[in-house]
Structure formats: structure tokens, C-alpha cells
């Protein structure tokens, strides 16, 4: 144990006295007066239920009560509770609101719970029994699924790496990141099942994918990690999901890809709002973010050109042109999101446009 109690409480006369007093019926009850912000939150739309936005209406509890730099609470006491003396520090290292905040965070968390699914049953796996894929196509899907298991596991690891370091004042964002962890674990599950269902097998690990994922997870700060994960990684995953749905010829793959796209897009939505919110508050951060993405996108170039990704995509799509077209669209949509988040036009300093020209035969 790293944290040791200051005394042996089993031999503590003070604790014993408290137990004997309370259990003897001598109640103090002074705590009953400790409710300085009475509130009766109600659902603004009963069909939607009681949302985080509903309970955030009272300024004593809502996110507007969070200062840009949290200096008053490093414990697990919930935002708006009475903070008595003696609360310990839990050692949080992310204590700046603009490092994590996104106004859409609470509603994205609500959406993630509401749009839940379970791969075991939501996907009609038996439909794969009659899927008319050739051997090469079948193995191509299983190879892509193998890569998507890896990507999903790391996509679960990134929020896991940061959420426990975040101050409890940002609880809505912590909730959302826990949802991202779970969503990603569920995608890893779904793609493992897809790869192994029927006469199944996993494919080959990709060095380029591993390198790209390591770049993403090793991002030095949470804003850098958020941009690399939610904007870059999930934009490519969303594009892949769309393409898998496009090439699908059965209900199981169609549904799996549809849920994949939905989950991936929630991460993107948080990423766009988070980075926009950060840059509104601290515009100078744009330089560090863009420099980071310049380098992360080099990793993405490696992934997009890796044999374990581009070749099965070519097999499934009937040629390189369809893949190049899907890559171009995905990259353009990614750049649009970056611009929308306040990162400006990334096309000039990103390696991605040159890569697109390369596979389009223009370079």
C-alpha cells in the first residue's frame, strides 16, 4: 500500500467513542443543515428523461460554476457539495477546464447510453452463413477486422490513460470518456467476433498500424491525445466503417458497420467541440495542436498505405480507385472537422494530400 493511514483505527479511542455515541443513540444531526443549495431538478422533456443538462440548470451545480483553473477541490467530492476540512488530494493532474471541456459533452454522454447495443445479439451473425464472399474477400474482411480490434483496444486505452487524472469537477467529461472506453471495448469485441465467426481466423498484425496507435496513445497532454484520437483516429475509423457498410453484402456486416460508424462519430463530435472550446479559450494552443497532428498524420499515412489495410480494401472494393476515392473523401471530411474545430486549413502542412496524390497516380 502506498498510502498509509495515520493510525490503527481498530485501537483508536476517538473512533470508538464516535461509534459508541452514535450507536448509543446520541445523534448530533448538525449535518442536516448542510444543504446550502436546495434544488428540485426536473426533466425538461419527460420523454427524454432527466438529463445531465436538466440537473445543470442550477448555477450552483452546473458547469458554469467550474473555474478555468480548479484550485478549490482535488478530492472526489462532487461539484456543488459542501466541502469540509480534511478532504485529501486524490492527485489529479488535469485541473484546467479548457483542457477537457466541451459543451456538448453532457448530451453526448446521454446519447451514448441511449444508443447502446450488444454485439452478441444486435448483430445477426447467422446472416454470415449465407454471405457470398469469395475466399479472398472473406479473408480480407477478417484481416480488416483484426486491425480494427487493435485500433479499438487502443481507442479504449486512450481515455483510460487520462480519465483518472482528471479533476472531479469535470465529471460530465469523465462520464463521457468512460462511455468512450466502453464503446471502444465493445467495438473490439464486435470485430473479434466478426473475424472468428464461421470458419474464422485472425489476420496479421500491421507494423504501421501499431506505430500509428502508439503515436496516438503516447500523446503528451490530454488535448493532444484528444485531437489525435477523436479527430484523426476516429475520422479514419468512421470512414472505414462507412466503407465496410458500402462493400457489405449481408445484413450482419451492414449492421455492424452502421453501429461502428455511430459510435465512432460520437468520439469525433466530442473531439471537434473540445478542440474548438480549447482554442476559443486559449488560441495560442493552435500551434502545438497543428504540429502534433502534422506528425500524427505521418503515422496515418503509414497506416493507410500498410499492406494489411490497403490490400484487403482493394480486394473488397474491386480495385484501388474505389479505395483512393474513399480515402480522399475521408481525409477531406477530416480536414473539414479540423477547420471547424478552429485548427484552420491543414491541407498545406499535412502529409495526407501528397499521400492521396501518390495513390491516385499524380505523384
Amino acid at each position: 500500500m502506498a498510502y498509509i493511514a495515520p493510525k490503527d483505527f481498530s485501537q483508536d479511542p476517538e473512533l470508538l467513542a464516535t461509534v459508541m455515541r452514535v450507536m448509543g443513540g446520541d445523534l448530533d444531526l448538525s449535518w442536516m443543515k448542510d444543504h446550502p443549495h436546495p434544488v428540485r431538478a426536473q426533466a425538461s422533456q419527460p420523454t427524454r428523461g432527466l438529463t445531465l443538462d436538466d440537473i445543470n440548470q442550477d448555477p450552483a451545480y452546473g458547469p458554469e460554476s467550474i473555474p478555468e483553473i480548479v484550485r478549490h477541490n482535488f478530492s472526489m467530492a462532487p461539484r456543488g457539495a459542501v466541502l469540509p476540512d480534511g478532504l485529501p488530494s486524490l492527485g489529479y493532474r488535469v485541473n484546467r477546464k479548457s483542457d477537457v471541456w466541451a459543451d456538448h459533452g453532457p448530451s453526448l454522454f446521454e446519447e451514448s447510453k441511449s444508443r447502446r447495443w450488444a454485439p452478441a445479439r444486435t448483430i445477426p451473425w447467422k446472416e454470415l452463413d449465407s454471405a457470398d464472399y469469395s475466399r479472398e474477400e472473406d479473408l480480407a474482411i477478417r484481416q480488416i477486422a483484426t486491425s480494427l480490434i487493435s485500433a479499438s483496444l487502443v481507442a479504449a486505452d486512450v481515455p483510460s490513460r487520462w480519465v483518472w487524472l482528471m479533476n472531479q469537477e469535470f465529471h460530465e467529461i469523465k462520464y463521457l470518456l468512460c462511455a468512450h472506453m466502453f464503446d471502444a471495448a465493445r467495438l473490439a469485441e464486435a470485430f473479434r467476433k466478426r473475424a472468428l465467426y464461421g470458419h474464422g481466423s485472425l489476420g496479421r498484425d500491421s507494423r504501421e498500424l501499431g506505430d500509428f496507435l502508439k503515436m496516438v496513445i503516447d500523446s503528451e497532454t490530454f488535448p493532444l491525445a484528444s485531437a489525435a484520437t477523436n479527430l484523426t483516429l476516429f475520422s479514419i475509423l468512421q470512414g472505414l466503417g462507412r466503407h465496410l457498410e458500402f462493400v457489405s453484402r449481408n445484413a450482419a456486416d451492414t449492421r455492424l458497420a452502421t453501429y461502428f460508424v455511430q459510435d465512432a462519430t460520437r468520439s469525433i463530435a466530442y473531439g471537434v467541440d473540445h478542440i474548438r472550446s480549447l482554442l476559443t479559450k486559449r488560441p495560442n494552443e493552435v500551434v502545438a495542436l497543428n504540429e502534433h497532428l502534422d506528425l500524427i498524420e505521418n503515422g496515418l499515412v503509414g497506416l493507410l498505405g500498410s499492406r494489411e489495410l490497403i490490400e484487403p480494401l482493394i480486394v473488397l472494393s474491386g480495385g484501388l480507385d474505389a479505395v483512393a476515392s474513399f480515402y480522399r473523401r475521408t481525409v477531406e471530411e477530416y480536414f473539414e472537422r479540423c477547420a471547424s474545430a478552429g485548427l484552420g486549413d491543414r491541407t498545406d502542412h499535412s502529409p495526407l494530400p501528397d499521400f492521396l496524390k501518390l495513390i491516385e497516380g499524380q505523384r
Partner: protein
Amino acid sequence: MGIPFPSLEFFKALQQRTKDEAAAFEKLGYCDTTFGIRVGSELYRVVFEIYECVEVGEGGDPSELDFVLSAPLDLWREMLEAIQANGGADAAHTINTLTHVGDVMKVEYEDPEGHDRLYRFMATIQAFLDEASGLDLEFA
């Protein structure tokens, strides 16, 4: 007499189906988006709130919509006939497939976040259109 397509009546019939099939739509989760469906030059507005379609309308300003699914009548007809033949879109006629490589159906949008709502709520939007399988349609 069947329900004409395209028409406001058609979208009102789909709207009603989201109420009749409330349990199925609730299972898919929240869906909050206002999007457009353009058939040739005719624009229809579809508003989803929470689980169900709460409003449909004709015309409007596309810039106020999250996104617009746009295609000529023939393509919509082909898609709806596939939905009717299969009890829901077959793999070649899902909204995602039609709007992906080749863009036989266009996705128009001004705001990338609005655009992403198509992907966030794809299953609900597909289920909404799949409800046409139970309608008696007459194409213009």
C-alpha cells in the same frame, strides 16, 4: 389509391410509423436531428426529437438543416422499391451505401458537425426510411 411519392403525405406516413413502432425506435436510442430529403428539386424537412419523428414539412432553408440527402426521383424510387421488396433496404440500397463511393445520392451540408449527425443516427434514419416497406406507394 396509394400514397404518392414524393409527397408530404408520404413523409407524414413515415412519421406516423415512428409513433406506431415506438418501441423499435426507442431501442435505437436518442435521435436529435433536422435533416432534408431532396427528391429532384423538391425538398422535404424531417425533424427527429428524442426517439421519434416529430415534424415533417415541405421546403425550407437547406442551410438550417443538419444535412440533406439529395437524389433524383429515379434513385429514390429504386431505393424504395428495394425496401418494399425486402422489408427494408437491401445491402445495395442503404443510405450509407448510396451516399458513399460514387455518390449516387448526395449528402449536402454546410456544417461538418451537422453532417456527422447523419452518421451518429444512421440506424434510426435507415429504420425511418425502411418503414416505407409497409406503405402502398404510387410514384410520380
